């Protein structure tokens, strides 16, 4: 047993360690559990749920770009009802925190989803996706509108019995203003960042490589942008941050914590190295031992400028 304490808190949510699996990169947990022991990580954020099932966009949905990838899945998901009936049953078997990500097209739909899910004991918190770049209605438009972010946060908080995290869009000029709007409306934490809007063309057909024309850029290519956004929030708003964006190694994760994140999410890396969330645990312990850090949470916001 290591003497290093890896446990962290994100507002009222206590985690055994800061390692979370990001929404949209692990489905509802069953496939990734072939590669890792979900009991060992901090938690899992589900694929975005909407009130009704969503079929998602047609092919081509993904394309690789330099040190990253674009995706336009279109929030394909089973819907709240099916999630509660079948998907949650699998997740119940694990001693890990389940954070339910909700995406909707209207304030009413966010509220309705939260109402249906909040009674489920297995769910530890909600992450509200106000920033999906790949759906026509809602998504990015909410994420670009401070009043909308405030309104959604306020209404969801009214009906939620669990902590509420707001997942912010990086496709804005001052992300800290959005974090402030979320905080003032009662959010318990913010997740930063969602994907950056990007595109790629086939030079022979002159058509976009993905059907949706634009998609969300993720992977190592966005890590410096994500780190700067986390730092900006940390320096301007007193709210817990969950850092996300291009983490591919334990060193990347440590950088996010130094910049201000209380916990972090692994996303695109799960596609390439589906076992990294588990192998990273020991690396974090070794780092703490080497740096004489007794509690990993002390790393949060410990940057020296």
């Amino acid at each position: 047993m290591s003497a290093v304490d890896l446990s962290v808190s994100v507002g009222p949510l206590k985690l055994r360690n800061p390692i979370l699996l990001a929404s949209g990169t692990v489905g509802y947990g069953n496939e990734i559990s072939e590669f890792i022991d979900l009991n060992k990580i901090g938690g899992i954020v589900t694929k975005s749920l909407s009130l009704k099932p969503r079929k998602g966009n047609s092919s081509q949905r993904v394309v690789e770009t330099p040190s990253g990838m674009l995706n336009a899945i279109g929030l394909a998901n089973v819907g709240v009802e099916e999630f509660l009936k079948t998907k949650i049953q699998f997740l119940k078997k694990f001693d890990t925190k389940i954070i339910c990500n909700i995406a909707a097209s209207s304030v009413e739909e966010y509220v309705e989803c939260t109402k249906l899910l909040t009674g489920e004991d297995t769910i530890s918190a909600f992450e509200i996706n106000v920033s999906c770049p790949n759906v026509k209605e809602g998504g990015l438009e909410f994420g670009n509108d401070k009043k909308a972010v405030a309104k959604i946060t306020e209404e969801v908080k009214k009906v939620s019995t669990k902590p509420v995290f707001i997942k912010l869009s990086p496709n804005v000029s001052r992300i800290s203003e959005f974090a402030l709007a979320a905080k003032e409306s009662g959010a318990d934490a913010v997740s930063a960042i969602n994907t950056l809007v990007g595109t790629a063309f086939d030079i022979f057909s002159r058509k976009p490589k993905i059907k949706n024309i634009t998609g969300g850029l993720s992977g190592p290519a966005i890590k410096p942008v994500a780190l700067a956004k986390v730092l900006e929030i940390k320096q301007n708003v007193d709210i817990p941050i969950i850092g996300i964006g291009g983490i591919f190694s334990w060193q990347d994760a440590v950088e996010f914590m130094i910049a201000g994140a209380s916990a972090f999410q692994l996303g695109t890396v799960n596609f390439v190295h589906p076992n990294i969330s588990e192998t990273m645990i020991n690396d974090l312990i070794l780092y703490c031992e080497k740096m004489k850090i007794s509690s990993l949470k002390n790393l949060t916001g410990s940057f020296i400028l």
Partner: protein
Amino acid sequence: MFLANAKVDSVTQIGTNVFLLKLQSDKIAANAKPGQFVNIKVSNSNFPLLRRPFSICNVEGDYFTIMFTSVGEGTLVLQKKQKGEFVDVMGSAGNGFSLDGNYEKAIIVAGGIGAAPFPFLIKELEKIGKGIICLSGGRTKNDCITYEMKNVSIATDDGSFGFKGNVVELLSSQIDRYKNERIKIFGCGPNAMLKSLQQFCFTRNIEAEISTESSMACGFGICQGCPVQSATDKNKFLLVCKDGPVFNVKDIELP
């Protein structure tokens, strides 16, 4: 499914731009089925970032082989692998071909590098006593792959070798030979070819399975990047990586 550090045994060029990579991994070799694929991280760097999916071409003891044409940044790296190097492989993934069915003769229809999964399938079909006929097509003579195929007929778009036309037209020209036999078709190739093969099978009411391809990020169902329209449920996409890559022709609508 496993993550394995597979050891490179050999890289062999078998055609103008066609290569075989033989890898050693007892776990993957022991569990592989014809039509399944492996997802390979070709480099240790972020270039390329994502794994690349390849059909399992054949299995022999602790070894398995993949066949590829060197077309992009991923395959270029693979082509240069040296004996003794290790490669990060995930597999075996997806649903392969079903050998079941009411048939005595298997007709293999391959378009270009679509020949890749068939050596393994042919070996397994022979084990259960099925007759094998192979049709292989390509743009020119150099694009037709016949590696480990049996009773092969060739079709080339430019007529530089064999039948002049595409491989489905070749199949159409030969199909009457088998009118008194129970047949099953196994196809793999570009989407346009598979679509035409699918139509052919519908018209003639022939049992068939096709191996499809798609760009994908993960290869095991979590990224949702490889949808294909279900033929039975308008509101549903199937995933090439998890529900496929092999489908019964009746189950999907190709783009």
